[in-house]
């Protein structure tokens, strides 16, 4: 390909992932599905970081460092969240968030 890919397609991809993630978080009933949505959002932001890092000379190193840290933190968050979902399952025998209704709205 002779034409270089510009910045905006990457941003659109990031936005797409972000929107998918938000929709996933809002509509999924399965708790793990919601966590997948969270991961999608975080990765959408990551794509943004990496894209900005490539196309903005001042931001090169910083963007990559951002992305690395976000990956680590997302992993940590997924670990804690899954542990909590497991605990919830132990208590309620379901991962359906509609089952979490004992505390009034």
């Amino acid at each position: 390909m002779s034409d270089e890919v510009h910045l905006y397609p990457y941003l659109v991809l990031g936005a797409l992932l972000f929107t998918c993630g938000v929709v996933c978080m809002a509509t999924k009933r399965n708790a793990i599905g919601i966590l997948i949505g969270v991961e999608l959002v975080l990765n959408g932001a990551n794509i943004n970081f990496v894209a900005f890092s490539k196309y903005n000379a001042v931001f090169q190193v910083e963007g990559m460092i951002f992305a690395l840290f976000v990956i680590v933190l997302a992993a940590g968050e997924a670990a804690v969240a899954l542990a909590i979902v497991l605990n919830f399952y132990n208590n309620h025998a379901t991962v359906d968030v509609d089952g979490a209704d004992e505390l009034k709205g």
Partner: protein
Amino acid sequence: MNETLANELTTSLSADVRGFMPELVLCFAIVFMLLIRLMPRYDRVHMGWIALVLAGLALTVSCLQWRGFHWADFPVPGVGAYAAMFDPRQEDTPISISLFGGMLVYDNFSVFIKMFLYAFITLVVVLTLMSKVPDKEDSADFYVLLFGSTIGMAIMASSNHLLMVFIGIEMASLPSYALAGFLKGRRQSSEAALKYVVYGGGASGVMLYGISLVVGHVDIGSGYLPNIVQAIAEKNLLGSPLMVLGTTFILAGIGFKLAAFPFHFWCPDVFEGAAAEVGAFLSVASKGAALALLARIVLGIGGLGSNLDTPAANQQAAYDSWSRAVDYLVPFLSIFAIVTTTFGNFAAYSQTNLKRLLAYSTIAHAGFMIMGLATMTRDGAGAVLFYLVTYLFMNLGAFAVVAFMRNLTGQEDLSYFRGFVYRAPILVITLGVFLMSLLGMPPFAGFMAKFQIFAVLFDSAHMYEREGKTFLSWNMYGLVVAGGLNTVISLFYYVRVLKVMALERTLEEVESRPIETKHVPIAQAVYLTALALVILVLGILWNPLSQASSNEEGVNNFRAAPTAPPVAVKLKAGGP
């Protein structure tokens, strides 16, 4: 370039470590508490006392940092020398150095907030020791999570870079998700933790996206807060839709931490499901750290951070950027504040579960504190700091009473506590003190805090009028009226708790049985009385605290500019 970066990082390392010392003490505490259980002899020791000692140590170090320059000639050798390592400040120049290459900022504001946080967790550890919530097996986990969350909050409060903001928020939130679900066997606890983690994950994801938009903007290209602020000021970026979106997402993330409307949905459920001690911790510490972060970001965008020493040539530009930022941020924050407070007060009205009621009261108070920030002045931030300190004692006391009551009776529902004053008078009397202070009745400290917020609102109204912004001035007067009305509204539910506990007749009285008094352990009574006394004393002698948190001491001086400018490392073209 790499050399200079490496050079710069290593030469300042000793200063950085010294500045980061309180957090390092907590890190050491975490490692110690985890490792000591490897030894079979200490497998079953309750970690509470160790946690208390180490939290106290962190508090001491933090206090030394705060008063560093005054303690330079402390008679005990070593202390003075240690304290003097922190730059002695001249009368008018506040301390402000950046740590770790500009990642964290160390100025009076952050040191004050950190001191507040460490004092608070020391008191929370005392509370957990008395209410025996984490039992021996789980105690190490509990305190490790507590301290980890605190370190995250300390990072939040002193962050100078958006990455650190994100890391701080995540580090503060993840342990608190686990803390919310700590009572593993209780169904409500697991439900609360699930709701918390789902909301929290979503909020932090959205916030990260906002950070990515802000940071990558073509004119900014950096995560350093002072650089961002400067770029916004010079190039009027607040008009750009991408920037507005990014900033809104970031504020949404912070709003989640603050439990401000409409990001508050997790708050009542988590407080009801989690243990009362965890509720105490979350309600004060995470709110305090979130407010500190909000203050830093909002006041920074408002241009207060970077134009302290602006040369005269740039002052007009700085004033213009302040003017634009204020026109946008003040109404936004005011609406945020009013909606949060009013919602919290109205929703609390129908609650019967004590912890849920306190959760909504927490939301209302967060709204009050946002009012102080909505003034976009340094005095406003000072008033919020004062409010935070008084709020620490009031809220901690209220949650402590709920915890002790739960220990005595196993109940948390208000209707069970009818006429409780005849069964455990000390609990109800101290609860009365805490609730009246939360309401804002003199002579308790809560009134002084609300008074300062009102005073700062009035002051800024006059200031905006002088600057010619009459709309903002009326905005401030509207906040005053809203604040006053909300105080009256909150009267209902605070007094209702007292009414049920003190005025209504006990079930025993109705059925003509003798009233059995519950025995409250003396340690608990002393703890509660001490907290109540602090509130009373702070209400009468509030001058020192007011001075410490106000403008004169330069506490909230957002000199966020790092002393070491960020190094833009340019890789060779065609390189890796």
